[in-house]
Structure formats: structure tokens, C-alpha cells
């Protein structure tokens, strides 16, 4: 017996409604509880940093503060941020002399090895919190990711310690924490910026060479700085969408 039009439409309607309800219910079961609501809305922010090379004095207070705040191993060679010292012969930009004793943890004591014909400057470095991050693309297990507010983070409970991301980062910003054998990196002090504080390095920088900025907040002074200065990101040819903007960056900086 063929169904009449009314019963066919009713049946189809019920099927549609019920299957939608079932799929919504199933989504809810699979998704579990969404993150605990706070007064911080991730989609309202897009974090970045400005580094003014012309203000950096190489005191190393930023990385001392970083190690304190984030429990970074106190041994040399483990840094979430560090300071490099450049000596560049103006006629040979290809071969800068770069050093960073202990990352600049004790500043740069002593006279160094200055050259009267060269230019000298410091370059603070940290994770560039790339919008199209190579480290995120290579992670095989979804342990590293760009958060909805533009911060590259690591899920330490998921990280296998495979080191793909350490190799993928063009800026050398990642290391393996010897205590956990998982990868570690700058979180842009995510626990601070989500509470309305600035990062530990920006909080302690005595010359204001580092400034945290929220690109989605129109009142943030970072917009005035970016408008008024010629800024560069590191390795723009890598097309990583880096969000650490350097003012006064020399062409010799790698």
C-alpha cells in the first residue's frame, strides 16, 4: 500500500526532527563539559608583543623573571626567552658575531669584544606566537596548538616528546624539559594575561623594550606603536604569521 502524501510528510518530518535531536544529543555526549566559564572571553583577544631593540640594554632581567614565573629549568641552555648580543660589521651583514652567554641570565658582564668599526646591539628573543605556526603543523598528536586568542601552547599531558616541533620552529624557541621529557616553550604567560596582568618579562623590563599588546583591543597602545614605527618580524620569508614585532631590527639578525 502506498502512503498518502500527508502520512509521508509527517513521517519524513518526524525522522528529520528526531535524527537532528539525536545528533545534538550525541554531540553533547562526545563533547563533554566545555571549559569552565570565566569573565575572560578568548575570542575578544589576539595577543602580540612589541620589542624595541633601540631600548634593550641587555640586563637579562626579563629572562630571570621568566624563569622565576614559569619554573623554567635554572640550568643554562633552557630558556623560554633569552637575549642575544650582536656585533655587525656594516659592510658584512651576512656574518654577524652573535653570542648569548647563559642566555644573558647575568646580563653581559665584562667588556666583551667590541670593534670600533662595528655596530653593537642586543636582540631579545622569545616565541613569536605565529598565527600559522610550523610547530603546530608538525605535531602528530595535537599536543601543541594556537589558542583562540592567538597564543601557541603545549598540552603537556599529550606531548610525546618526539621533538618534531623543536626542529620545525624557525626561531629555536622550543626545548625539551629534562624533568618531564616533554616540550616546553613560552606561553606568553597565559596564566597572567588571562587575569589582566602583563607577562613577567614585560612586567620587569626596566626600559620598556618589551610591550605586550592585544591586537583586538582598539585602545591598546600597541596600535599607536605599530602605526608610528617601522617594524619587522623575524624571518618574514617563512610566512609564519609571527606576532612579535621588532622595532629597529637590523638586517643581520637571524
Amino acid at each position, binding site marked *: 500500500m502506498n502512503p498518502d502524501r500527508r502520512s509521508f510528510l509527517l513521517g519524513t518530518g518526524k525522522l528529520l526532527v528526531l535524527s537532528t535531536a539525536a545528533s545534538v544529543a550525541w554531540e553533547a555526549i562526545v563533547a*563533554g563539559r566545555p571549559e569552565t566559564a570565566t569573565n575572560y572571553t578568548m575570542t575578544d583577544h589576539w595577543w602580540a608583543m612589541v620589542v624595541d631593540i633601540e631600548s634593550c640594554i641587555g640586563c637579562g632581567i626579563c629572562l630571570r623573571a621568566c624563569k622565576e614565573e614559569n619554573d623554567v629549568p635554572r640550568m643554562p641552555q633552557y630558556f623560554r626567552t633569552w637575549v642575544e648580543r650582536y656585533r655587525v660589521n656594516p659592510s658584512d651583514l651576512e656574518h654577524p658575531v652573535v653570542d648569548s652567554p647563559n642566555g644573558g641570565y647575568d*646580563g653581559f658582564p665584562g667588556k666583551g669584544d667590541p670593534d670600533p668599526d662595528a655596530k653593537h646591539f642586543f636582540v631579545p628573543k622569545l616565541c613569536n606566537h605565529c598565527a600559522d605556526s610550523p610547530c603546530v603543523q608538525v605535531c602528530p598528536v595535537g599536543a601543541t596548538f594556537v589558542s583562540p586568542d592567538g597564543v601557541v601552547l603545549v598540552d603537556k599531558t599529550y606531548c610525546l616528546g618526539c621533538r618534531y616541533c623543536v626542529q620545525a620552529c624557525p626561531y629555536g624557541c622550543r626545548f625539551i624539559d629534562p624533568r618531564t621529557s616533554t616540550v616546553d616553550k613560552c606561553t606568553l604567560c597565559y596564566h597572567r594575561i588571562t587575569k589582566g596582568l602583563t607577562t613577567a618579562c614585560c*612586567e620587569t623590563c626596566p626600559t620598556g623594550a618589551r610591550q605586550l599588546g592585544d591586537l583586538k583591543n582598539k585602545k591598546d597602545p600597541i596600535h599607536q606603536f605599530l602605526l608610528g614605527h617601522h617594524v619587522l618580524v623575524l624571518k618574514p620569508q617563512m610566512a609564519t604569521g609571527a606576532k612579535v614585532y621588532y622595532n629597529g631590527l637590523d638586517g643581520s639578525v637571524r
Partner: protein
Amino acid sequence: MSGWLKDKEHLARMAGLFALGITAFFVFRWVMVPAGFGLYGHYRPGALDDARARPLHYAGRAACEDCHADVVAARVGSRHARIGCEACHGPLFAHVQAGGEKKPARPDSRILCARCHETSPWKPKAFPQVVVAEHSPEGPCVACHKPHAPKMS
């Protein structure tokens, strides 16, 4: 009976096996995939809460200024006015939490001041620098300079 109904029992057994396999797959998936995976992207959204839950060590300048009005007044117009308190005094969130207890150690000015002000060709030319050994061979810097307002009149 002839025709397809002959294999009915066989089909039912296969269907049962399939149903069991599919159920096992979903149970396995439910156990292995953490709650909310994929909510924002290919990661566990709980990792955001983990990153946010880390303890604070630096309280931030505003917290210092709540209590230390005298220092705020001393720094008005000073060349050190814009420096965060904890740049020199170290992490003080525990001090704030303890309501002023757990006072920080007084910094050694000969080490601390030199970290910024020792002469170096790498520093910007306009930044005030001294060769500490010549400028003051011994004694603390704070014997002459007040660190909150360092200019000597």
C-alpha cells in the same frame, strides 16, 4: 522454506557481530578521546585551563602600589618612575598574598645597578652608563643614589 530465508540464522549472527564491533569501537573511542577534544581545534580544550591555572609569582606593579604609597610618591618624576617594582625587588606575589609578610631581601646594589648601568658598547648610546670599578671602587651604590629617585642634586 526455500530462498533467502534459508540463511536467516547466519545473517543474524553476522549482524550481531557487526553490532558488537561498532559498539566496541564507540566505547573505545569514548574512553580514549578526552572530553571536548576538537572543540576549538585539533587539541584538548582542557589544556587551555591547565595553562591558565599555573601559579603566579610576580604580583604586578598595581598590587605593590596599593600599599606602598610612600614609594609611589618618591618615584614621581624620577628617571626610574616607569620601572616595574619587581624588576629590582624580585617576584613578590607571595608577599602580597601574605598581607605584607614574607618580605623580600634587600637587593645588593653593586650587582643589581651594574646589571643595567655598567658601560657596554652594546647598550644604546643615550642610556646612562658608568664603569663601576672607576666610578665607585667600593661601597654600595645606594650610599649616594636613592634607587627610587636616582638623580643626585
